[in-house]
């Protein structure tokens, strides 16, 4: 982890450093208190430094890479889960999509790198480095696609390899332009290098065009015409894959025979470079390793493919020829040490998949490449074929690592969760731990996290999200929001405790908060008894306010009788009944009055008990008040009973 200077300075000042994990980083702090004497430490002690891994790898190009490849990853998994598994053509198409996305990423990084102004030199360097890394990834991926995924008819491998070399080699257009515009093209020091390069890359037509620029082409045409004819008749270039192996072999051997004849005849003695070229066309070993040929190649694999083109063009990916040529060319080009990239390419050519994946994992600093490549390999069955019985475990492991790496960005959690869902053994465990650590910064985000929990059947975590949001709302005094979260998760226990809080606030304030919510609870109030009680109680108040006293009274009695009223609220309910009892017009009939009396009687022993304790308690006034209320209630009840009995009695 590279630290900026300022950060290093803070850390160096710390005498006793401690660190704590946080999200995807570490918080480092100093535990020693600043001493009074040490004036210099005054400014710096107490600093908290937060460090994060890999924060520089995220830019718009890599974000695009992650998002676009996610889409194709999902499609691949869907295809693989189908009845016949993933067919070869689907795999190849998928691989090409990934490669296209990689290429787009490389171009984007180049654009960003050039657009970065001169001040941000460190940034630009990191972009350039990333650009090179991704280009290398594209190179390796392309080769793997050709060798392992493409189902190629005979003779097509060489064309694919030539295509591979052409796509990834440094562009020669500028050089070509220079040569064409030079007054005397063949005097240009790189003229013949360009010709050899084009020949080795299989760009025959372009090579012929360049050759025609040679002044000798006009003066002594026969030599150049002869070469031109040979090049024009070269087979293996536009094979449509329809011809059989025998036919292809025959036509190639015929052509090579003609090349050898012209070489031996001495057609090209006048121009030694053309002689060398003809020897190359004949596939002579010494010619292919000649100094000027080697110099015209930028990379060893250019030379390798060029050699294969002229020595064994019908090669198959499993032929030993390929590896032997590769090793030879590597030896010629060996800059010393053997770069990792070359080792990886060699493993690919050797068919050593395990080594390939190991080297890639070790050397490429992001998990994107190995995770996606291994997934494609896994679905194509190559891992099984290479006797990697634990192949599926390997691909799962790599996807886990990749998902973990994208967790480091706060935005990419939906994608990380979805990748984890494709890991059958360990994914769920990771998901449940991860989802609890996603910060819930707004209600909308919490809802999205909740939907993700539901999608992956993380029921406990879903409940946790709702509880967290409900508690947060409750602490900031927003009971309505808290209630809505507990309704969302059907959390009866929390809803019940919130209902109690509402009731407590009613008792202390004398009026309800959040009337709009209580009035429109609807059937959601059935979640909990206490909530239902709250809703019905509010309804009672509404009915009372509207003057519908009989209905209000009925509701009150129903509430008590249905047992949903907690005992501590009975007094309040009965007190509410008092004005109804004292009304001119009768509200309660005999049964209802008896019911009310029954509840009051149950309360009274408690009331009388509290009389005994009254001596011990200071607060005698409220006890008196209570007693007052009880006696008032008894009086009102008795009066109402008498009235009701009279009403009910048949008229005389």
């Amino acid at each position, binding site marked *: 982890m590279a630290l900026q200077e300022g950060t290093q300075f803070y850390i160096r000042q710390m005498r006793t450093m401690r660190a704590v994990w946080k999200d995807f980083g570490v918080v480092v702090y100093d535990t020693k208190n600043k001493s009074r004497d040490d004036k210099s430490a005054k400014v710096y002690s107490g600093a908290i430094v937060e460090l994060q891994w890999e924060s520089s790898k995220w*830019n*718009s*190009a890599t*974000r*695009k890479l992650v*998002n*676009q490849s*996610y*889409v194709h990853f*999902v*499609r691949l998994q869907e295809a693989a889960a189908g009845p016949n598994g993933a067919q070869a053509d689907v795999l190849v198409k998928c691989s090409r999509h990934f490669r296209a996305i990689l290429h787009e990423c490389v171009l984007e990084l180049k654009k960003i790198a050039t657009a970065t102004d001169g001040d941000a030199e460190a940034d630009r360097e990191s972009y350039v480095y990333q650009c090179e890394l991704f280009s290398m990834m594209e190179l390796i991926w392309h080769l793997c696609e050709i060798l392992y995924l493409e189902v190629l008819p005979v003779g097509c491998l060489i064309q694919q390899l030539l295509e591979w070399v052409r796509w990834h080699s440094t562009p020669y257009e500028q050089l070509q332009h220079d040569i064409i515009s030079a007054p005397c093209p063949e005097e240009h020091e790189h003229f013949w290098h360009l010709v050899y390069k084009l020949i080795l890359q299989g760009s025959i037509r372009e090579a012929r065009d360049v050759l025609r620029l040679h002044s000798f082409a006009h003066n002594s045409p026969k030599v150049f015409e002869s070469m031109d004819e040979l090049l024009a008749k070269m087979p293996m270039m536009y094979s449509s894959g329809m011809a059989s192996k025998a036919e292809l072999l025959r036509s190639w051997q015929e052509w090579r025979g003609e090349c050898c004849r012209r070489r031996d005849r001495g057609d090209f003695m006048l121009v030694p470079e053309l002689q060398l070229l003809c020897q190359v066309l004949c596939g002579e070993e010494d010619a292919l390793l000649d100094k000027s040929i080697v110099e015209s190649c930028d990379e060893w694999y250019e030379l390798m493919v060029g050699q294969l083109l002229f020595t064994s063009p019908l090669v198959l990916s499993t032929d030993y020829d390929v590896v032997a040529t590769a090793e030879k060319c590597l030896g010629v080009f060996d800059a010393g040490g053997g770069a990792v990239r070359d080792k990886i390419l060699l493993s690919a050519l050797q068919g050593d998949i395990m080594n390939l994946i190991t080297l890639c994992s070790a050397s490429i600093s992001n998990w994107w490449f190995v995770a996606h490549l291994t997934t494609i390999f896994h679905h194509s069955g190559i891992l099984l074929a290479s006797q990697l019985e634990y192949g599926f475990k390997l691909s799962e492991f790599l996807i886990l690592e990749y998902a973990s790496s994208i967790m480091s960005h*706060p*935005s990419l959690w*939906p*994608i990380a969760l*979805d990748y984890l869902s494709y890991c059958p053994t360990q994914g769920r465990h990771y998901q449940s731990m991860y989802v609890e650590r996603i910060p819930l*910064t*707004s*209600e*909308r*985000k919490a*809802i*999205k996290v909740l*939907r993700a929990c539901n999608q992956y059947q993380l029921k406990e975590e879903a409940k946790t999200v709702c509880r967290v949001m409900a508690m947060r709302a409750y602490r*900031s005094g*927003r*009971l*309505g*929001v808290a209630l*809505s979260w507990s*309704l*969302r998760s*059907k959390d009866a226990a929390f809803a019940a405790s919130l209902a109690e809080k509402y009731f407590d606030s009613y008792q202390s304030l004398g009026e309800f*908060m*959040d009337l*709009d*919510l209580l*009035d*429109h609870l*609807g*059937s*959601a109030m059935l979640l909990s008894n206490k909530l239902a009680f709250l809703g019905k109680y509010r309804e009672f108040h509404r009915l009372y306010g509207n003057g519908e006293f009989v209905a209000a009274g009925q509701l009150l009695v129903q509430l008590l009788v249905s047992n949903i009223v907690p005992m501590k609220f009975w007094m309040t309910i009965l007190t509410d009944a008092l004005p109804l009892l004292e009304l001119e017009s009768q509200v309660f009939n005999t049964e209802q009055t008896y019911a009310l009396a029954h509840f009051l009687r149950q309360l009274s022993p408690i009331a009388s008990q509290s009389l005994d304790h009254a001596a011990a308690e200071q607060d005698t006034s409220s006890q008196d008040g209570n007693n007052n209320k009880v006696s008032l209630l008894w009086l009102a009840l008795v009066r109402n009973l008498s009235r009701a009995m009279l009403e009910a009695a048949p008229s005389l």
Partner: protein
Amino acid sequence: WAPGPGVFVLVPLLRMAEWVVKYVGHKVSKVRWRPQLAGSIDPSNIFASGSWDDVVNRVCIWRFPATAKAADEEGLNEPELVCAQTGPADIMDLVFLNRDHLACALSDGSVAVFSYKEAVGTLSHVRDWKKVHGQKDLPSPCTSLGVLAGSANVVSGGEDGRLNILRLDDQRPYATIATADSSTITGLDCSIPSEVLASSSNGMLKVWDLRKPPSKPARILAIESGDYTSINGVSRHPNQPNLVVLGCCDGSLCFWDLRQEKMPASLCHAHTLDVWEAKFHRSYPDQLFTCCQDGSLWHWDASSVEGSGQRSSWLSGAIACGKVDIVNHLPHNTLSVNSCDIESRHLVCGTDGEAIFVIMDLNLN
């Protein structure tokens, strides 16, 4: 009204609507077309997008179709980035006050206004109302904005249940309804002068009359279905102002005739997950667009549904029964479509997959 599950069969696209996707490197929370020049028939070619849930969030202005020069360079007909402004807070909502001013609702409880200068192609900060939502030391996100009809004043609603009326020339809110709602205000519609419709996450739609002192709402309408329902957004029919459509958190769409308070005219269980936005086309109100958490973007075409007399076809029971043509313009998308907007023939939408899709040349009757 039929609360049962509707049978919604998606019509397969006979002619693939052409679309363009641009991966923008941030999750898109809102997209809005810039209003057309009054009286012009040229469709708007500028839209704004806001990002969310990122370390640095941005408001971007895009041009679509791109200028010829940009299209040549890229080789594609992608939306072209004109300018952007950045900030740490999520963009929760975005509205164009007029052709030159853009207001953003931010997750730190503020509302910011930017001015877009077409000639130079820049977006500059004009006005900030800081922390108008939430308590002083604990701001809560401002979740929705509305433009008061006939003026450039902004109404903002937030997670604290407060409604603010903000004027461009005044630093402090012009008016505040502190206890507008007991839960989060999720959507606002102010297309009728002096009337504000506010939807909440408790399943309620409140109608506020700004001519009277706003101590309580003029009306409260509530969806009282069995399960808990939260409304994510509200949108009025352009020709019939009493008809509103509400997108709900369980994927249902509620069509309400405001003259009837008791219950909605129809409740369609259309999508499977939250409907984030539902809006009518301004010029072709038989076309409705809904975008959903499950990644679908539906285009509802009610032009073949018979309305009964005065009632609009949207209120008829046929819609609830699924007898309406629906096309999903993003059949392969899996990440949530957070927002969509349509001005003339191009439908633009933004997703959690960090992509902006533009579906071009829609077939509108």
